[in-house]
């Protein structure tokens, strides 16, 4: 009964095999190129490497390795924008006009020169596609002045623009190549699939292959003529969970592990590996909803003050592990406008008890909402929430934990429904203006139902900071804004978790950068200069 069918299937299979064998390539199976290969393990946060569309952590790293931006940051110094494809820039006194002079002689990977037209096309494409990174250039228009000059005009004063331009999403693409493959400067653009198989940039590496679920392979760009020194023939970036990353890097199967927590790092053999630890630019914070309709407790200023004084901040750092620090403000330590450690909120149990009594709140148990399935740099929000609950309880403040998956809880957070929320903020760009989100009526201020009318003095401080142009004045205005937030705002900065980069001894130059994690073009081979 099945005999005929089975033999037919076999015959078909055999035919396929023969056909394939006939046109089989008999390829080498090995890697190509003669130089060394670098293997990086990372837990992927990756959707695409189309510069105008990507805004995920892994995408930023890959894009930064293949493309260049007008301005960049040298090493881990985030305080001064450095020349990139633009050799110099000038911001007008009213901070509305940014004039950039292009570097001479730079070329794309196909050898064609990088022109002002490429710059204009690239930035207009980001704006026009209305994708994730479009907001970076909100209110900005881009125009070519002459062959070597590009002018960015902002509707409002925009002193942060030189700090925004280094974002890899604002990379300059080869407009001829991208246009030939469906690229446009509006939302009809269809170049994403092409850019996810072939890069069209001027950076030290080029895209060899990409599978957003498992791995990306970059290869050295032979036409590259910038200042970086790409040291590897190929770079393989693999999607690997942290526990497996630790084993791979110890075994020598990979040379860099990006996602190990403090606990995992402390167990490593430091003789064979180099661990670079330091605070990340993320701020984990607590906010208390100021909407009386949401909670009469959390909207009470004395209650907010009691919570601020009840928290045992050094105790939270123990949970967060080595390398983490307590930020003194919402702005993290490495960004201008942050406050010195001495000004950080401190535990004061007597003060907390007094404030709690003054608030008149009793018998209420606000819900502390947080994304329970979320870990940030190996730090679980579940753990932090539990620790906070017990710390508050020790000071006589009772809160109920309200865990939910991140995809669900995001909605409540964004719609301002959380009574107390535990979240984090990573800078879109290393400029204090990014933290105006925490002002009254700001992006996150709104989520705490905190209008400008509720805190006119803090609102004034935020507006004064936003209006400042000169760098030193900006820094001091933003510090004033942070001080007023600490004194009277609904936000409590808790922890800047540590980032740990583990590298083999053979690897040099793997420094952490909050925007693109790792500058692939700077990663070198020990002993080769």
């Amino acid at each position, binding site marked *: *009964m*099945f005999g005929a069918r089975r033999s037919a299937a076999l015959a078909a299979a055999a035919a*396929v*095999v023969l056909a*394939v*064998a006939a046109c*089989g*390539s*008999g*390829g*080498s*199976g*090995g*890697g*190509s190129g003669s130089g060394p*290969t670098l293997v990086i393990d990372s837990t992927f946060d990756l*959707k*695409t490497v189309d510069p105008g*569309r990507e*805004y995920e952590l892994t995408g930023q790293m890959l894009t930064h390795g293949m493309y260049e931006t007008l301005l960049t940051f040298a090493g881990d110094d985030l305080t001064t924008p450095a020349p990139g494809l633009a050799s110099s820039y000038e911001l007008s006194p009213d901070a509305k006009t940014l004039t950039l002079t292009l570097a001479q002689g730079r070329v794309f990977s196909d050898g064609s020169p990088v022109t002002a037209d490429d710059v204009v096309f690239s930035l207009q494409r980001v704006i026009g596609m*209305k*994708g*994730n*990174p*479009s*907001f970076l250039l*909100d209110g900005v228009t881009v125009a070519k002045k002459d062959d070597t000059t590009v002018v960015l005009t902002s509707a409002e004063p925009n002193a942060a623009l030189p700090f925004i331009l280094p974002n890899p999403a604002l990379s300059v693409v080869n407009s001829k190549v991208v246009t030939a493959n469906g690229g446009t400067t509006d*939302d009809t653009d269809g170049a*994403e*699939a092409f850019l*996810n198989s072939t890069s069209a940039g001027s950076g030290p590496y080029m895209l060899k292959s990409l*599978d*957003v*679920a*498992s*791995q990306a392979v970059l290869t050295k760009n032979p036409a590259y003529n910038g200042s970086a020194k790409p040291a590897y023939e*190929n770079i*393989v970036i*693999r*999607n*690997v*969970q942290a*526990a*497996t990353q630790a*084993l*791979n890097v*110890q*075994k020598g*199967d*990979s040379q860099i592990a990006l996602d190990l927590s403090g606990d995992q790092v402390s167990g490593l053999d430091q003789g064979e590996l180099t661990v670079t630890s330091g605070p990340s630019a993320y701020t984990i914070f607590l906010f208390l909803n100021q909407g009386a309709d949401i909670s009469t407790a959390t909207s009470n200023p004395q209650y907010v003050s009691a919570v601020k004084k009840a928290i045992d901040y050094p105790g939270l750092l123990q949970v967060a592990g080595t390398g983490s620090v307590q930020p003194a403000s919402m702005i993290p330590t490495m960004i201008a406008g942050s406050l010195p450690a001495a000004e950080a909120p401190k535990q004061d149990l007597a003060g907390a008890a007094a404030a709690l009594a003054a608030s008149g709140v009793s018998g209420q148990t606000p819900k502390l909402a947080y994304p329970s*399935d979320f870990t940030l740099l190996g730090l679980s929000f579940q753990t932090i929430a539990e620790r906070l609950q017990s710390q508050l309880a020790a000071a006589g403040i009772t809160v109920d934990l309200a865990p939910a*998956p*991140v*995809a*669900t809880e*995001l*909605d409540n957070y*964004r719609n301002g429904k959380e009574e107390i929320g535990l979240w984090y903020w990573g800078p*879109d760009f290393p400029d204090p203006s990014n933290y105006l989100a925490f002002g009254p009526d700001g*992006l996150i201020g709104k989520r705490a139902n905190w209008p400008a009318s509720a805190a006119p003095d803090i609102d004034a401080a935020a507006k004064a900071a936003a209006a400042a142009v000169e760098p030193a004045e900006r820094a001091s205005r933003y510090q004033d804004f942070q001080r007023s937030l600490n004194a009277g705002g609904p936000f409590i900065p808790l922890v800047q978790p540590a980032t740990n980069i583990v590298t083999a001894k053979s690897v040099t130059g793997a420094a952490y950068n909050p925007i693109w994690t790792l500058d692939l073009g700077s990663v070198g081979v020990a002993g080769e200069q």
Partner: protein
Amino acid sequence: MSSSPFARYLLRRLGVSALLIVGVTLVTFVLTNLVPGDPVAANLGQRAAENPATVAAYRAHYGLDRPLPVQYATYLGNLLQGDLGESQQTHRPVLTDLQSAVPATLEIAIGAIVLSVLIGVGFGVVAAVRRGQLADSALRLVSLVGISVPTFWLALVAFYVFSFQLDLAPGSGRLAPATTPPPHVTGLYTADALLAGEWETFGDALAHLMLPTLVLTLYTVGLLTRFTRSAVLEVLEQDYVRSARAKGLPGRTVLIRYVLRAAMVPILTVVGLAFGALLSGTVLVEEIFAWPGVGSYAYQAASHLDLPAVMGVGLLVGIIYLVINLVVDLLYGVIDPRVRIS
């Protein structure tokens, strides 16, 4: 041909299967849309999600701005043309994603099920025949361990011991970083490497397959040993087995011709279910071995509310179980003449 009872049976089964597939898509669609949470919030950055124009463009791109029944009808219409929509996670067609995830999972699932059947059924028969003796106790202990040990823990320990400490197995992933995948034919790296005559790649792919396959095997072996043992014991107590023995038939003949054949029907059911479970992806094992299979894909899709991808995985799992069910039912007929369609 079409008038033969078997053909009629098969047509009816296929018809029912098609209806069930539609049912699966409907259930998946309703469930994914019942989940609290907005895919836009989960997939757009916080700044982008604040901009009405960006959100509108996103909703329009994924068709989320239309009423749910229209969305579902559109989905079904596209499905008939082989279009499963575009994943919000990978920005690729879901079909493309599945075409790369399914072979990865298939590669470890096939190995695991073949090994489990050989070992598990063998163990189960021995345990049943040696009931109450030392061998039985030992095998029952092995199967208990196999069933009880959390697979992800076992995966991590196996990886630590065999790859990291003993260096008997390579690191994570499907291939070593320096190895280029073979020319794509089936998506199974081992098969594709053989077809292309790339022996080195074949060896590398096979070495990477070993550990995840063995970890999955241990669990399924435990399951099958227990099940086979009880199925065989049940048959051994039947009158006709005793009669066969009394007639003086050799023990081996009785065991193979009578006992195993009768016990095979329930065993086959469990094998089918176990294979289905393996094919649906084993999330944690895949995560630990950095294996880009169906399990990892499903997990990623669910955690990002990637509706098209979740629908795609739901559909795939539905089809897998329907096909396995059909194959198992047909095999019953081969094994047991009483259920044969004539």
